[in-house]
Structures are given as C-alpha cells and as structure tokens.
C-alpha cells in the first residue's frame, strides 16, 4: 500500500495518545499568524495598567509593605503578584473560551479525533500553546517592570519559569472544567468565579490582614500559591516552603490532563 499509509501506521499507537501533540502547536501557529496583534497587545497592557494605577496612585496612600523582615515599596510588592495573576488570566482565557469554541462551535477537536490523533495529543498540545502565550505575556511584563526599575535583582528572571508553571496549572485545569460546559451562561460562571479569586488572593496586599478563617480559605486556592511562588522567586526568598506551591501546581497539571483527555474521549469517541 502507499507510503503515506505506512508512515501513518508506524506512528499511530495507543487509543489515547499518538505521540504527536506538536501538530496542535503547528495548527495554533498557522491560525495565530493570520490574526492581528490586538488581543496580544491588550492582554499584555492590562497588568501594566494595574501596576501604574495601584503602584503610583495607591502607593502614596499605602506606603511600604513588610515582606518577611524587609520593608518594601508598595509598587514593588504588587509587581510579582500582578505577574502571577496575568499568567493565570492569560492561561485561563486560552483554555476556557478558546477551548469552549473549539469543543462546541467549530467542533475542531471532533475533527481531530476522526484522524489517528488521540485525546492526549489534543490536551497536551492545547495546554502547551496556552503556556507559550502566557510565557510571552510574562516576558513582556517583566521587561516593562525592569524598565521602571521595579525588579529587586537579576534573579527576578526566575519568576518567569515560576509564572509558566502557574500558567500550565491553570491551563490544564481550565480545559478540564471547560470540557464539562455546554452553554455560554455556564462559561460566564467561570469569569464570575475568577474575579473574587483574583481580588482576594493577595496580589494587592498581604492576606495577613484577613481574619484567620478567611486566610485559611484563600490559602487553599491555587492563585494564592501561584502568587507566593512567583513572589518568592522575585525577591529571592527561596526556601523549602516553595516546594508546597510547586507540588500544588504539579497536582493541578496532572489532574487537569487526566480529566481533559478522558472527557474528550467520552465526548467524541463514544
């Protein structure tokens, strides 16, 4: 039979995974090439606006914040928090609204699953793309912040891989949740739940201002771990505590990937 078939045959393996998630990246790149820079630019501008408003406007009212034993400028305090929050928002946007569209409107995943690709290829490929976009936002934000002279030391660059881990966790988890949703109202619910997490997780002030019970709830939420992780690298406060945050995100990634791939299989390979 034809060579094309032989190649395909040799490469198709298990029902879940054909070992070709990179073709999803190729597809995303082709689609991305023809879009304009508007959404990228606006996605990047948002944390910068927050930094300007809260940093300059609020800084006067708030003064310095104590982190550990050091007392630091308010603007410097919120910068890593905003980095983590924007990594989350970028990853969540890509893995919820975009994924919802491909699941329910364009049926792209259904088409892909009529080829030898498996659900795991799709999950890995899409999440990696969300991660890459989050990475671009993070690098952009770090660049701006450095220009304003708000980075404490060159080690702040390590906050980038930390923010990527946060993005990976949220992308993976976001895609898993989206795979259960059928209507736009349900998707609106995602946005609605994210806002309080955004506001309460300590990107703009230390959560020690809360009563004890509220502090405990916030510490169970993923964004708080993300902010603490990025902040630790940002200020070079590396200690064994960050292992907890890293572990939290590894669990999120694993659960997200597992649920997403099984949901895709249940939805389209019945």
């Amino acid at each position, binding site marked *: 039979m034809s060579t094309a078939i032989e190649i*395909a045959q040799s490469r198709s393996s298990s029902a879940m995974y054909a070992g070709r998630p990179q073709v999803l990246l190729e597809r995303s790149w*082709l689609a991305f090439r023809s879009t304009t820079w508007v959404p990228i630019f606006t996605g990047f501008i948002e944390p910068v606006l927050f930094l300007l408003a809260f940093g300059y406007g609020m800084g006067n009212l708030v003064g310095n914040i104590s982190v550990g034993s050091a007392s630091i400028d308010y603007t410097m305090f919120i910068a890593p928090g905003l980095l983590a929050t924007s990594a989350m928002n970028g990853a969540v946007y890509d893995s919820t609204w975009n994924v919802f569209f491909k699941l329910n409107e364009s049926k792209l995943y259904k088409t892909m699953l009529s080829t*030898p690709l498996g659900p795991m290829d799709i999950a890995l490929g899409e999440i990696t793309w969300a991660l890459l976009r989050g990475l671009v936002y993070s690098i952009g934000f770090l660049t701006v912040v450095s220009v304003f002279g708000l980075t404490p030391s060159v080690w702040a660059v390590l906050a980038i891989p930390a923010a990527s881990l946060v993005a990976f966790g949220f992308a993976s988890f976001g895609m898993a949740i989206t795979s259960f949703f059928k209507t736009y109202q349900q998707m609106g619910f995602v946005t609605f739940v994210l806002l309080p997490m955004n506001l309460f997780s300590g990107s703009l002030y230390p959560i020690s201002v809360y009563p004890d019970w509220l502090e405990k709830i916030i510490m169970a939420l993923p964004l708080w771990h993300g902010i603490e992780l990025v902040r630790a690298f940002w200020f070079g406060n590396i200690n064994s505590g960050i292992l907890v945050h890293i572990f939290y995100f590894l669990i999120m990634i694993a659960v997200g990937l597992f649920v997403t791939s099984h949901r895709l299989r249940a939805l389209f390979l019945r």
Partner: protein
Amino acid sequence: MSNPLICVRGLTKKFGDLTAVDGVNFEVAEGESFGLLGPNGAGKSTIMCILAATSTRTSGTVEILDKDPEKFGPLVRAHLGVVPQQDNLDGELTVSENLFIYGRYFGLSKKFINNKIEELLEFAQLQEKRDVKVEALSGGMKRRLTIARGLVSEPDILLLDEPTTGLDPQARHILWDRLFRLKEQGVTLVLTTHFMDEAEQLCDRLVVMDKGAIMAQGSPAGLIKEYSSKEVLEVRFGSERNADVALVLRNICERMEVLPDRILMYADDGEKLLEEITVLKLHPTTSLVRRSSLEDVFLRLTGRTLIE
C-alpha cells in the same frame, strides 16, 4: 475477490431505549462504491460513525481491513478518509492550510503533504482559492475541500456522509463528477444518502435502510428490477378526488401507491395504462410516465417516501 475491506455482522447500536441500528449485515469489497440509502433517521450516520472508529457499538462485529475499529481506533482511522455530514473545516485557516494541517494530524511529512496539496487543489478545483480563508468559500467549494482533505492521507476507504445534502443542483453535479473520478481511480467509497438519484449515479451496490434495519440490498438496477415495474404512471386528480378515483383504478392496475397529492401506478407500459384511464373517462389534471427509480423501491419496501 480478496477479503472484503469492510465486514459488518449483526451490528446493533442503542441510545438508551432507542435502537438506532438494528442487526445490520453488509460487506464492502476493495474498489467498490457502496451506498446506504434511506430517509433521515434511518441509522445511516450512526453506522458511518462506527465505521469511522469514532463511535462504539452495542453488539455485533465490525472489521475494517481485518481490524476491529473499537480496539484499533487510531490504526483504523489512519486508513480512512472521512467526510462528515456537516463540513467541519478549520475556519481559522486558509484552503491550503486546511489540507496541510490535516495531513499533519496523520503524521505525514511536510514534503509529502506539500506535493499532495497541488494534486488535491486541482481535484477540488480550488487552485485559485488556495490562500483564501475557508469562511469565504461557497457551500459547494467547502464540500469539495472537505472531500479533498479526506484524501490527503491516500486512504483505503473514503467515507462520505450525505455528500451533497444542502447543495444547489449545479454544485451537486460538479461534486458527482468529482466523486465519479475517484470511483474510476478505484478508490473504495462508502456513502450515505437520502437522494435516490445520487445513489443511482454513484453506487455499484447499495442497501436500502429504514428504522435502523436493512430492507434490501443489491445494485441500483437490480433493486429496481426486483421491487418495481419498468415504468411508473403518475396521475393527479386533485387532492379531494384522489382517494375516490383510486378505488376505481385498482381494477386496471395490479400495484399502485396512493400519496396525498398523486397516485403512482406501476406497469410495464405506462402510456398504455394512461389510455385505459382515458377510456374510463377519468380525466387526470396532470399525468406523467417515467422510469422506475429507487424512490419507488423504497416506497414499495416501506410504504413511505424518502423525503418527507
């Protein structure tokens, strides 16, 4: 004849209480053009999804290229070209990018696909639309692109679900011409349709389906010969009178079907039958003599028309 490419035995698919496919048997040989003819809801698309290894069955056996699609999904899918009922092209990409990325899903090399794209664009008559976003294509063009896309991996079997539904007559004829070429090249085609003219034009052999079961199978000509007369006389007396007149007409015609708007009379010589009606002084408002078609076969087998 070598082993059949597709072998289906006792295939049943239930969705809860509903039995969508009910104990279906058929085989498709290499190079054959095989059709599933039946009205909407007959279970054709469900069978196609099972053949495409994207849907599981409730019972029965299915072998495609000697493999069970449920156990070897990716392997079976690697040998299939799938053209679903709704075009599911990638709206964010151009025509040629659609072909390219689909080939990549199969793990084909970029070099192989790039050579293949030229051939497929020519086949789909879309050379001029190469760099156009697919949203801008007409319905017929989208359909041709979907078919071309299904061919990018040089599949052993091309599965087409309702290939011309929703297209205007001109676009349908262009598409039939393209599919006929594939048939001439020896590509094995499996298609579903509820258009009897499409089944007559494209299928070497077909099964007539209704309510999940196969009513009959054979070649289009063979089925017509077996289940219908050579000619059909269609007469209309106005919807008020049809039923009354039919009682009289039964005396001069062995088999007829009384539809709400017309009466179909089966005979070897339609003109002669029409003369007899005139002799009886029953003047139909319109009359037409035509060859028997698969529509008549379906009517005979189920008592219903294909398109309701």
